[in-house]
């Protein structure tokens, strides 16, 4: 762990003893695992009956720029320790910060996408605290006059495991500020000291401070997921939570109806959506337990342990931190117009954002909110649009059901994303067209998709012809099949006619088998029912 900065008098080894400090290594968790409501808590809603929980989020998003916020060092994850450290980054005396214009551009674009008011002139402040991975003894941030204020983020909350139907929600954004990231400390129990890696020190961050508008882990996950989608569309942050390029702190409190907000605790450095959701729900539950048992909540910072699935107090706040903010004297106020960064130019550069996309889809195709959420939030929108554009007048409901149920099912089994789908959108469209023209049944189309997915090179029409999967549009033949089933199952027919309509299910299972995916199942079922009921009269 040797510094590349060759300053003599610079200690080559950054090792020193440190008081036992808790340190949490979050599990790596991808963005796929979105719906993670904490089932370990049993039925939380019941226990929380009289309580209201309040959640406010703070997000640190690393700005995707090639160099750091105030120095020319590269900004790259997983580089050899201390290989991306300029003189300024390790706080060598006499060095000065120089603002990276690209960082400002990225933050400005993000602020506008989040509906913020832009401060044309903002200022930098020093926030002081001693920490081994904070080389200057202060962080340059924007406390008094941040780049942007008063924004909001609209998102939909929808986790089928919790709620059957989605609902819309908004979280207000108090401010968006530019600031420096710190380095990393590695505390190893087995070693006699700590190790410091300053590669991350000085990387540009956008800190987003949300108002306490949320109520639980599910909403927090929905909010952050939407933020991630926006940042990804903008390209201003790569949002790899597992690498720490997007980190979330959650402020949690509980209170009873009619009361003021309770004392809050802060859960720090949540590095996955699973941890975000679970830690918040755990913390709500913990606070309610404490209060119900006559205890008191103390204002403290807590960390989440993914193994124990609990939050733990990280440091005692007996010594209240006073950051002794002071204006940064080495930087001029950030004047956007002077830097030729006009917010109105940037507003025009904002691409279509997820919320707008969902609204467009609902209007254009008359889709349900639920379906648009699945299309947009799952990242399936590009594929969907390509399919819809491939052939005219495709039935949108059929496209959605085949795409969101069948195709995603196949992909999910192989842990693939829609971007890795081997079935070309045009092929997909042809399959849907075959269903639309009643050339094949819905069931046959599922088989067809599967065969194409697994690498069949023939075109869909050819497969249908060669495999003999064409739908039979002959109601006489269908009626004959139904008759045959009725005669083969006299007991069931008798029970049905005696009023035990439940047996219809078993009869239609027989029917499905006999139809062998070649008859329209809707029509087949109707025919069967008609025949059963006809004889009664």
């Amino acid at each position: 762990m040797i510094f590349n900065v060759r300053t003599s008098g610079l200690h080559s080894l950054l090792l020193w003893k440190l008081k036992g400090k808790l340190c949490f290594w979050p599990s790596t968790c991808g963005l796929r695992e979105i719906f993670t409501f904490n089932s370990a808590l049993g039925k939380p809603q019941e226990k929380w009956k009289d309580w209201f929980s309040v959640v406010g989020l703070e997000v640190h998003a690393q700005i995707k720029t090639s160099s750091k916020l105030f120095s020319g060092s590269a900004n790259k994850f997983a580089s050899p320790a201390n290989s991306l450290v300029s003189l300024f980054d390790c706080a060598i005396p006499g060095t000065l910060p120089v603002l990276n214009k690209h960082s400002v551009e990225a933050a400005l674009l993000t602020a506008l996408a989040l509906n913020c008011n832009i401060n044309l002139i903002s200022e930098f402040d020093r926030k002081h605290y001693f920490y081994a991975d904070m080389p200057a003894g202060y962080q340059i941030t924007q406390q008094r006059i941040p780049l942007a204020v008063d924004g909001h983020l609209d998102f939909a909350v929808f986790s089928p495991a919790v709620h059957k139907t989605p609902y819309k929600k908004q979280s207000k954004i108090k401010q968006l500020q530019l600031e420096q990231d710190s380095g990393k400390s590695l505390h190893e129990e087995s070693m006699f000291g700590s190790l410091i890696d300053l590669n991350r020190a000085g990387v540009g961050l956008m800190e987003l401070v949300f108002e306490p508008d949320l109520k639980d882990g599910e909403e927090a996950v929905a909010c952050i997921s939407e933020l991630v989608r926006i940042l990804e569309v903008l390209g201003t942050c790569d949002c790899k939570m597992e690498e720490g390029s997007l980190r979330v702190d959650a402020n949690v409190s509980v209170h009873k109806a009619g009361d003021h907000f309770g004392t809050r605790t802060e859960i720090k450095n949540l590095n996955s959506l699973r941890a975000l959701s679970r830690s918040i729900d755990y913390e709500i539950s913990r606070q309610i337990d404490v209060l119900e048992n006559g205890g008191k909540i103390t204002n403290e910072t807590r960390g989440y342990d993914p193994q124990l699935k609990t939050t733990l107090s990280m440091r005692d706040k007996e010594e209240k931190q006073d950051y002794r903010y002071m204006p940064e004297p080495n930087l001029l106020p950030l004047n956007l117009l002077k830097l030729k960064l006009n917010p109105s130019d940037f507003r025009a550069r904002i691409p279509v954002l997820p919320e707008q996309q969902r609204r467009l889809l609902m209007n254009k195709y008359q889709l349900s909110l639920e379906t648009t959420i699945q299309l947009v939030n799952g990242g399936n929108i590009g594929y969907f649009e390509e399919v819809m554009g491939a052939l005219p007048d495709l039935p949108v409901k059929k496209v959605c059901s085949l795409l969101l149920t069948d195709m995603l099912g196949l992909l999910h089994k192989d842990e693939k994303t829609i971007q890795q789908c081997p079935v070309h959108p045009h092929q997909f469209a042809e399959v849907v067209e075959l269903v639309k023209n009643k050339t094949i049944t819905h069931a046959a189309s599922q088989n067809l998709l599967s065969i194409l997915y697994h690498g069949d090179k023939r075109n869909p029409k050819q497969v249908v012809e060669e495999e003999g999967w064409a739908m039979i549009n002959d109601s006489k033949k269908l009626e004959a099949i139904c008759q045959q089933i009725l005669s083969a199952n006299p007991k069931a027919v008798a029970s049905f006619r005696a009023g035990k309509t439940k047996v219809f299910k078993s009869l239609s299972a027989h029917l499905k088998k006999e139809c062998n995916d070649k008859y329209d199942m809707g029509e087949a079922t109707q025919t069967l029912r008609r025949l059963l009921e006809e004889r009664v009269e």
Partner: protein
Amino acid sequence: MLQQLKSGGCSVQELYTLCLNRVQMIKSLNAYITLTNKISQVQLEESAQRYMKGIPRPMEGIPIAVKDNFCTKNTKTTCASKMLENFIPTYNATVVQRLLDSGAILMGKTNMDEFGMGSGTTESIFGPTRNIWGSHLIQEVNSNSEEAFSTPPDDFYISGGSSGGSAVAVASGSCTVALGSDTGGSVRNPASYCGVVGFKPSYGSLSRYGLIPLVNSMDVPGILARTVGDCRSTFDIIKGWDPKDSTTLQRPLNKSKLKKTSSKLSKLCVGIPKEFYCPELSSEVSEAWRDVADLLENCGFRVVQVSLPHTSYSIACYSVLNPCEVASNMARYDGLRYGYRATGKNLNSTESLYAATRSQALNQIVRGRILAGNYFLLKENYDKYFVQALKLRRLIYEDYVKLWSTGVDLLLTPVTLSDAPLFSEFNQKDSRAQSADQDYCTQPANMAGIPALSLPVRLSKRNLPLSIQLMAPHFDDETLLDVAELLEKELNFPQPTVKEA
């Protein structure tokens, strides 16, 4: 000197040897912390080559000294503190780099008060710097005094500070030009006591990159030289925008208002601010001030009495702002990455390591200011102290803006309240009281960011230099230098002659 080098009247080797001898002769004055003989030998060879080939650079072969708070590549930069006693930067400060690039030869790094906190160069871990005036090294100079003054044994006249090492280095002739830094008067004060020209340019005209900061919003690199002309030549080399310092001015400085024809000269107006007549002002300085004012009038300037009503608040304001920035700037000295690190068995936490390192390696004045600064910046105190001080600074600044708008082009004031005090006298007062006396006349220029210059006038009864200060509007550095040069000619201040061994 440059003229002589160029005309061949003196070779670079001769000049260098002369200066090197002086460096040796004045060792007892303790002006230098580090001598850079090895580096200067290499530079000397290149300079000689260039003169031979006829391709000298603008400052080719000029010996310089640099205050030990400017980073110098591969040369110790200590800030006269135990904290950085063994700190060797890997880079040159911009102003140093520009001097080296133009052919200047670095003689050494000069003594100072620890981190620039002091006004006598008495607070260095390497011991105080003694003034050459009144020392055994000085030859009798023409004095207007009949009385003979001798320095008491075991005592000496202070050099002033915090750039005292640079002032003595120049006054003794061990270099032609020296860099200092000026936050509250740290260039002008020792220049005044040592009888050299001390120029603090406009804030923003010189890069601070590589200058280890005291108060970022007031620090300005300064130039000490025997003549205004040398100051100007050096200033021309080092001034101008630096992409590494966001607070440097991107456009050129204002052109000089002084046209060298007598008819235009009369149109310049010099203000005499009445607030600078403070009770502590010595009669000798007061007389010198009045005489120079008369001199200017005789030269055709319009001299008027003016008022800068908030002048007396400057020191109080400074004593809040300075500790705040100091507290912040000093936070990086934790012993982890560079600098002194405490060792010991009981240092078993980051906090205890920090505490031991900082209390062992920073002197009491530095620690006192860190404590005060952190107190002023506490949430509950911030508005009461820091914000109030900022408001006061704004008022002081506006005093000047208003004054310039009434047609005043320059100000003439004292620099120091007296000639150089004896160490024993100076040391009786604590650091705050010293600062209140020493910085009274110089501090306001830092508050306002305006250029100011200390110019030696004549010798006092004690055979010590008496100086006067000129100030000009922000970025009117050229006017300031022109008027100073004009005065310099009229005053004809005697250069000290060092006794040859």
